[in-house]
């Protein structure tokens, strides 16, 4: 296998894992709770800007990550209480309200940090030799972290009692409430975890991508497409969707060009939305 193929495979794996990480939060919020949170991308932006703050204060990146989680979780809690919960029975209205919210968050970030691009330095620089090719070390570390994180999350969800309680609340809230599970609290925690995950994604990705107030929108739309293709409500669905969308994008872009890659992803999403609106592997 020559080096360009190995690089291609590594790129593919990287892209799929990053898509999974980014869409994980929305998967919890939309996939499990049914909340179409149009402000999800802004949580990613907040996570990235937490790293900006950490860099300016010249503290270790780890604190930046912690700050990202803290800020997004707090904001997520407030949103869940005041915006999402009152609109529980009106999903389209949730979409609209969170849309308005995303504008407010963007304007807020603009007001504090300005519109210019921010530069976050990678904590792990340089490249590593892997499978006979040089690949950026930060990316490799990130990929490893994502794999471990997803595995742990999957195991927790499958085997822990907390995970079972969450599954029950999602599958049949009325019955779950009747047997004593505090469904409201479960929903709140799921939402908060969902947005915090996206904040974490933003913090981890910040050294690799452009950082500016408008950065969140592309990730939002991409995440929606990943979820509808793969199926809502399960980790395997998330991974399937990321796998299909990510692979298509990387393969078509490499073999043809980026325009066809973009068109292929859009067409694929439309096709799945039409033919399998519940996605490939759905729990619903």
């Amino acid at each position, binding site marked *: 296998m020559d080096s360009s193929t190995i690089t291609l495979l590594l790129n593919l794996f990287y892209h799929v894992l990053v898509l999974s990480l980014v869409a994980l939060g929305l998967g919890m919020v939309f996939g499990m709770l049914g909340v179409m949170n149009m402000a999800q991308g802004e949580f990613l932006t907040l996570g990235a800007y937490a790293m900006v703050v950490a860099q300016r204060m010249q503290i270790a990146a780890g604190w930046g990550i912690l700050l990202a989680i803290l800020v997004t979780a707090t904001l997520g809690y407030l949103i869940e209480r005041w915006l999402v919960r*009152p*609109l529980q029975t009106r999903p*389209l209205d949730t979409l609209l309200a969170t849309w308005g*919210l995303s504008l*407010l968050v963007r304007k807020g970030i603009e007001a504090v940090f300005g519109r210019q691009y921010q530069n976050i330095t990678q904590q792990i620089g340089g490249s590593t030799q892997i499978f006979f090719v040089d690949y950026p070390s930060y990316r490799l570390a990130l990929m490893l972290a994502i794999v471990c994180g997803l595995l742990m999350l999957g195991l927790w969800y499958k085997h822990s009692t907390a995970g079972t309680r969450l599954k029950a609340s999602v599958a049949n809230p009325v019955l779950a409430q009747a047997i004593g599970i505090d469904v409201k609290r479960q929903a709140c925690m799921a939402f908060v975890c969902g947005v915090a995950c996206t904040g974490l994604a933003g913090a981890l990705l910040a050294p690799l991508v452009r950082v500016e107030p408008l950065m969140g929108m592309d990730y939002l739309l991409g995440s929606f*497409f990943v979820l509808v293709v793969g199926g809502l409500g399960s980790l395997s669905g998330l991974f399937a969707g990321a796998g299909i969308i990510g692979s298509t994008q990387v393969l078509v872009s490499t073999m043809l060009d980026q325009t066809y890659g973009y068109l292929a992803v*859009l067409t694929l999403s*439309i096709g799945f939305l039409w033919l399998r609106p519940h996605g490939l592997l759905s729990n619903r």
Partner: protein
Amino acid sequence: MAYFQTAKQAASLLTLALCLVAVPFVTNDFRAYQLGTYLLYGVVAQGVALVWGRLGFLPLGQALFFGLGAYVAGLLLIHAQDNALLYLLLPLSILVPALLAYLVARLVFAGQYVSGPDFSLITLALTMLGAQLANQFTGLTGGFNGLANIPQLGDLDRYSSMYFLIVALVLFSTALLSWLYQTPLGTLWLAISQNENRLQFFGFATDKLKAGAFALSAALAGSAGFLYAAQQGLVTPQAIGFQLSAELVIWTAVGGRFGPYGALLGAVGIGLLSSDLREIWVHWEVLVALLFIAVVLYFPGGMAHLLLNAYQFINRRSGTHVPAYAVAPKTPGLRAPPIQSCGGDCGPVHLRFDNVSVQRNEVSILNGLSLAVEHAGVYCLIGPNGAGKTSSFNVLTGRLARTSGDIFLDNQRVTGHRADVMARAGVGRKFQIPSVFNGLSVTDNLRIALWSNRAQARQLLESTSRQWRTDMLDFLENTFTFLADQADKPAGELSQGQRQMLELSMTLLAEPRLLLLDEPCAGLSTAETQQQIEVIVQAVSRLGSTALVIEHDMAAVQRLSNEVFVLHQGQLLANGTLKQMQDSPLVQAVYAGGQK
């Protein structure tokens, strides 16, 4: 035929016309030119309001049709300068978006009975696709810089007289939508947004209705795009992209999505105001976002609804009563035309289940169910919970896919037919939990039932169809007096028992040949149960239909019918008279019947 149900509507339209026409004289030509662009956006927003406010599904990519109409019109206008015949093709700028919308909606809604977010996401993806293609095919669309040098439309100067053509379009679309909203079709649209599932059981192909409405909204968008191309002289990919689509939704939400005036108010109010205030006040966008959130949380009807409430409040204070719903005048009524499905002389229905099985994972919901009904009359389906009684109804009406076996109606194979197809074949169904149109009045609920299988397309556009009466309706109103006494009450405000009776009435009014009643007395008091049973027995004998009734109350079963089917574990256990069933040791072993 009255064109406007109330003089109020005519007055509103006239006021709008006067206000709009006065603008260039009261202000100046430039102001009118600016207003004209936002009026065009307003027409597109009216289409969004139609689909979202009336029918209940949200299009996130409406600019696709607007931009498509604009590009088509722009290209035609440019090339028509060399070849005047191309002017004749200008209606394509309206037809092409409409056809595309119809196609998309039919494909997406086929077989669905509830609108989900997938439609919204599909329209979003389509608009992104449209913007990318517009950017890419520079030879055709001018690419990023757009299609430029589009000439004016004929002699209409784009800075002065073009405005009046735009006003004409606005008045036309407002009048058209206002009229349609108060036709029977408009009521059906509302019914779709409230309970699409139920409407299918009255024989209405809701996917076609939704697609038709979506196509209408796209036609409006396309015609607005046509005038936009002529007015601006330039069409760029922003006219077809997500940004404009998002703004349209925001304008419709804030202005008011339940009527055409609200959408106009939103587009002109917010849109035009934004372009003025954005430069004066830096935080204008923040205010719009806050306003948007407030509207969504507290005023789902938007500014128009607020204004209407204020207007009604003032009127109530001053003593003029404004009814909340447009009430048809009480007339003696017209005889309704006959039922479509059979014309009345088909004879009793023949129903046969032939070894029908339904498997889901490892669970057998139906396990080789075979039963046959040959004569008219009432039959009861009894059996313990989980026996498959409701599932047999579901598989018959296309709500549950069968794994094997077949169902025959009048010796025609009807396995897997959709609910609305079965309803049109004369199968009526009443649900265990009463399923009516909660937001519509009792009268409107009954009307929908009357239109079922009777009204042809043309009649759905005539307000006289609201006055139909049948003998069955007279009978039901005499028995269930609340149907006439509380005619204007929204069905959602009725008690549980009344809703059961309402739904039974609706099912009967459709005069089905095969009546599927799922625990029609659930939740009723003893007296109400008696009444309900009497109605069923009398109605079925009047109609000469066959009824299958799922019941648990043995006294009711006794009164209702002589013949009983006992189901157990997805199969027919036994059938015969009730006495035979009660004496059968087999039946006794698996099912202990109870008395209410």
